[in-house]
């Protein structure tokens, strides 16, 4: 999917993650992650974000994520929502993620 504009999804409240995407032409996925559970789950969260972007066909993006202990399913949903908002598209099948 092609990112067209900056978009955000989620919040910085406990149990949630706020994901902000900015379109980029190159440089892959440039991810900046802040997490309340960085020590324990930082790598896992990063892998989930990158995996979701890959499945949605996003190759290049500047991603800022502020995680407050979100579950993987929440992270996937927030990343996907931000991607769809950025692309200006409506999802047909969420379950693919």
């Amino acid at each position: 999917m092609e990112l067209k504009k900056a978009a955000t999804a989620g919040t910085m409240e406990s149990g949630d993650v706020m994901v902000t995407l900015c379109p980029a032409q190159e440089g892959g996925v440039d991810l900046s992650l802040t997490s309340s559970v960085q020590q324990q789950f930082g790598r896992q969260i990063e892998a989930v974000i990158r995996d979701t972007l890959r499945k949605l066909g996003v190759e290049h993006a500047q991603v800022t994520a502020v995680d407050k202990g979100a579950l993987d399913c929440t992270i996937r949903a927030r990343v996907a929502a931000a991607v769809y908002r950025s692309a200006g598209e409506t999802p047909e099948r969420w379950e693919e993620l």
Partner: protein
Amino acid sequence: MIRLESCPAPPPARLEEYRRLLTACGLTDEGDGDQTVLAVEEETERLAACGTRRGDLLLQIAVGPCFRGEDLAARVLSALMAQAPGRPWMLCTKPENRRMFASLGFSPLAETADALLMEHRRGTMARFLSALPQFPGENGAVVCHCDPFTLGHRHLIAYAAARCAHLYVFVLSEDRGAVPAADRLQLVRQGTADLPNVTVAAGGPYFVSRATFPAYFIKDRSRVEAVRTDLDLALFGRQAAPALGIVRRFVGEEPYCPVTAAYNENMRRLLPAMGVAVEEIPRLGDISAGAVRRLWAQGNWEEVRSMVPETTYAWLRSHTPTGP
């Protein structure tokens, strides 16, 4: 339950309560916000928390003493930031709140005695600066509005360029003047194109913007005592100067505007301690951008022409004055 309300400014009915909440958190209402989010306790209609956005700056984030530990700062900030996704967000808070906002993804940019400026994505300002052409040696800087670019600005820039290895000219990016920001930038570029060691760049949110130095853009400039200039100067001294090798800042003398005069005075007081010398240059005759704007509005083309370069003159001739 807490309900969030988003409004351009706190409604009059809530203003007193709003200011009380800020005072309880050691903050004051600076006014002039673009958007305010209020968190209201539904059962009692009490104001629980608040936050404001002004340009790219998030400020006056306050949570009432009875409502701490309920994640309200995070809710308010999320609501403010969702309104304009992907902005280079900065946040102004008190130094003691550093850890709380660090947990929300903010990292420090500059600090003064009673205020801390943070950015939301670490390295955003550093990337803004590293995207500019880099030059070795002892460089200088001029930060100017150039509304419009006059022979006075040209004199200041030429003087400065002759006294440093390379000169950065940062043109203010806010569209609050008589000439649009993109045109002002273009006119400075054209008017200094013959100076080989000058780089003209947009100041963005980092050089005298509504985020860093709001008073500059407020029409009523009499309340000098309430003016906050130290954050803008700390950002310049702590971030821009070391990144670009700037050791000297040049500024035009300001006999008219008390806010700019106060800014210049603070510059002389604060920047040398951060390794930046300040040089104030006397004005070139009676030339000022304000005078040019007045003459432009009057259609006094002969006088206008005596104060601006040909490129600015041509631009003014083909545009109708809108502002003061």
